[in-house]
Structure formats: C-alpha cells, structure tokens
C-alpha cells in the first residue's frame, strides 16, 4: 500500500586513493607516538609502581606500558595479599599502587583500605571492568582517588597517574 522505496543514501568520498589513506595513517601514527612519548616522560618517570592483578595478561600489559612510559621501577603481584607483603617488606620502593578490583581473596577495594591504613598518602589507582553506577559510587565513597575502566590506554594511565601525583588523595 505504501508509496516509496529505499531512502536515498549518500555515501561519502569512497574513491579516495588508498595510498593517500596510508600516508595519512603513517603521519597520524607518528604524531600519536610523538605525543605519547612526550607525555610519558612527564608523569611516570622516576616513579616506582606496584601493579596488582590476578589476570596474567592484564598484569603483563600494565607492566609493559609502565616500562615504556619510563617508570623508574615496576613490581607486580597477582593478589592483594602478596601486594601487602611486598609493601610491608620494603624490598622495593613503591610510589604508587595500581590494582584491579576483582581478585580472588582480597579485592582491590579491601587492598586500598589496608594500604591506606598503613600508608595514608599512598597514591592508588583502581583499574576495573566495572562501569556500573553502583561500583563507581562505591569506589568514590571508599575514597579511591582515581578510577579507570578497562581497557586502559597508555595515555589514560598517564593522565590518571599525573593526577595522582598532584592529588594523592
């Protein structure tokens, strides 16, 4: 009964030369790398970071990012309990803790409370897949100074660490 057919759609410049596209991507890649490297030096360099995550791949990824960002030292543990022992032992200096929320045994939130009771000015970054309202509010009310929803980019990590350096909480 109807009286019209497919709406006419306008597709943009389809025929752009593929070489041009590659050239743009190359330039973009260089610009991003340049910007990242400049940024990286500003926040994490000279910091000793403790990474706490039970997920091997995530822990390795964070460590690699931090090393590429010129962190002075990166120590990693797979649980909150190990992290506390690491902090208490004083074997390696720690200037900032980056922890996952969901871990078997001690959660990231619990770890934060324990770390803060021992070291009240220790900067703490919570990295989590939780993006629901209740989790965000819970983290904030617990006093977690900075919160990152996974996946994490080096730029974002750098921005949060820069914030924590100024505002350890």
């Amino acid at each position, binding site marked *: 009964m109807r009286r019209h057919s*497919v*709406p006419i759609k*306008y597709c943009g410049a389809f025929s752009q030369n593929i070489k041009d596209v590659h050239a743009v991507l190359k330039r973009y890649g260089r610009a991003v790398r340049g910007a990242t490297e400049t940024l990286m030096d500003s926040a994490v360099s000279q910091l000793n970071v403790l990474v706490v995550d039970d997920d091997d791949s995530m822990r390795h990824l964070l460590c690699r990012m931090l090393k590429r960002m010129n962190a002075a030292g990166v120590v990693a543990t797979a649980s909150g309990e190990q992290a506390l022992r690491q902090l208490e032992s004083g074997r390696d200096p720690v200037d900032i803790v980056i922890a996952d929320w969901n871990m078997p045994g001690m959660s990231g939130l619990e770890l934060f409370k324990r770390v803060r009771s021992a070291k009240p000015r220790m900067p703490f970054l919570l990295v989590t897949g939780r993006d629901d*309202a209740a989790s*965000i509010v819970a983290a*904030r009310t617990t006093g977690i100074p900075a919160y990152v*929803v996974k996946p994490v980019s080096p730029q*974002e990590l750098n*921005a949060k660490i820069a914030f924590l350096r100024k*505002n350890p909480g």
Partner: protein
Amino acid sequence: MATQTINTAPKGPPTENILMAYVDELAGKRAGYRAICFHLSRLSPLHRAEKHVQAATNLLMEVVDRFGGRLFLLRGLDVVVVCKGITAKAIEETVDTVRYLFVGEELAEKEAEGDFCSVFDLEIGYPQFRAAIRRIHDSEAKKLAAETRPPARAQSLHSRVGELIDALSSLDLSNAVQRQTVWAIYAGKKPKPKFDELFISIDRLQKILDGEFDLRKDKQLFQYLTQSLDKYLLTRLVWEQVGLARPVSININMATLHTPEFLKFENERGRGWRGRTILELQMADLWADIAEYQAVADLVKQRGYLRCLDGVKHQALPCLNFEHLKVDLVKLIWDEAMLQLDQSALRILGKAIAACGPRRIVLTRCGRQEAIRFGHAVGIHLFQGWHLDRLIAIE
C-alpha cells in the same frame, strides 16, 4: 482540520530534535524541574572514548531512574539530564561523581560552572536552558547538514521537494487521506473488519495539487515527500474525524519515528490508543538498514504499538525469519504470478506462511476473487484490497 504548523526549523540529529521538542513541551510545566548538561564534547579525545561515555551514562541513568527524569545522549557526546524534584544536594553529588570518572582531565577538574557542566533550575532559568539546547541543536544540525550534503545532481530535486512541501503546508490534505479495511474472511462466514489502514493517496494528492507537480511521473519526488506526509498524518490530521471504532494502521518511515512530530503524536494520542495502533514499516526500510530496523522494531513494541512489515513479495517471504524481525503482522503483496506457482514453489511458500503464522499474514492488493481463493488455499485469512471493498460495499 487542525491549524498548527509543522516545525520548519532546521532539522538536527534525531536525539537533538527530540530533546528540543521535549524542552518546548516543558515550557508550560517548569515548576520543580532541574536540568544538568554535561559538556562531554569539550573533553579531550582521550576521555571521549565510548567506555567513558558509557560509564557516565550508567551513572546518570541511576539518577534518572531515582528521580523519574529523562536522559539525552547527544551526537556530540554532551549528555543532558532533566529531572523533576531532584535536590541541589543530589545534583552536586551527581556532578562530583561524574567528575570523578574524568579525573586527570583538566576540564573536569575546573570548578567553574559551565566548563564541565551547566546546571539549570527550569523554574527560573528555563529561557537560558532553552537557549543552550537550541545552540547545541543548531550546531549539530549544521554539522549534520554538512556531512550529508547531497550531490549537485540532487540539489534541484531537493529544491523542488522544498517547493512541494511549501505548497502542501498551505493545503488541507484531509481529502487525500484514504482508509482501507483489512478483513478476516473465513469460508462460509461473514467477513469481519479487523483494522483500518490510513494512508495518503497519490492520486488524490495529485488532484489537490492541481497539476502543479506531477507526482505520478516523478516517483522520486513523491518518495522524498513521504516523511512530510507521515508528519501530516501524525500531527495535522484530526483523528477524531477519522473515527476510532477499529484499530488503525499507519504507514511510517523509520526516520519519522525519531522526529518531534512522533513524540507529539505519542503524547497527544495517549497510552490507551497505542495498543490499537499498528505501525506499518516498509520492507524497503528493512533492507536499507536492518540494524536500525531492529532497533526501531524494539522501540515501537516497548511503547505499545503493533508492528507490521509492509510490502513483502511472495518471493521474499521464504527468505525472512519473522521471529528475528520482531513483527506482529506481515503484509504479503498479492501478485497474479502467484497463480502460476508450481507445486514445489507453493510448498515453499506454504512453509514460509506456516512459519510466520497464517494469522499474522495479510494478503494485500487483492484485486479479484482469485486472490482470496489463493489465500485460503495457503492458509491466509486476512485480506485487503479494492476488490474486497467493492464486494463488501455491494453486499
């Protein structure tokens, strides 16, 4: 015929249009309403990633649920929340929690009002709020227009559509609106009317236009017009004159469902009317954007409308999974060629009809008695067409 005019302001993206219409609606009932506009579009690209916007909207949806408000995620990623009865303390708490998500971003750390977000008490600040939303709307409309500017060849057609729409806005189109009934016909029983389809007849419209535009010849012009005609049906038709003895179906472009006119139609028709309204979505719209079609199918169902897929040819019927397409009714076009189908083709068609559910299929454009016979042979009992109208009028 109602005298209100269709809004001729430049059209923005769908959400901006709906927000603008909602803001206009609030003009008469501002008491107790407060709005927060989060300028996420001003954040650095780093914080404009989907996950950030998702987390922010998750937070704000909780507030919206708590205070029975509304949330609009705009095209530029600004988020507008409007709530009635939200306290200043709750607003402060909400703003601080959203800021918390973006710590490390210079803009979020600025305390000054207006940088990261703007808060409006609509009782006193409605004009400022409306102006702010208007600015966002117009800016996004401009960007959208620049992105979708048609090629030079189509410009002349667009200008002709513009002229045609202008011509239509001054005319009373109620005479062009036609009604055709869908009948349930069972052998040996009196036909029962099930619902009426309302549509604008191209022939009658041509007569009203009095030769100024040749719609029969220029189908493309008519296609461009369909959205305007949808809006006419939604906003300018005096529905009370149409009569509402039976449920009604209307043809609608998917794009029309995102317009302020549809919102207005919804508000004015009321909830009780929705269960008696069938929205006929076009098969062509489905092919054009199946993801959008499915989203729209869900949306209209949630709002209580029945969904009908219109314009299905017999060749296409076996290719469609109707559960997946989320339709309540299917309009199968009668085609004389159906009488020539061999046994295997008939078996395939019969299976497709059985899979869809014969009670959900309407055989349309039934121009002669053979169509009814054929329908009965394959299990169809709902029919529509001029042949039936004539037959039943004679009886």
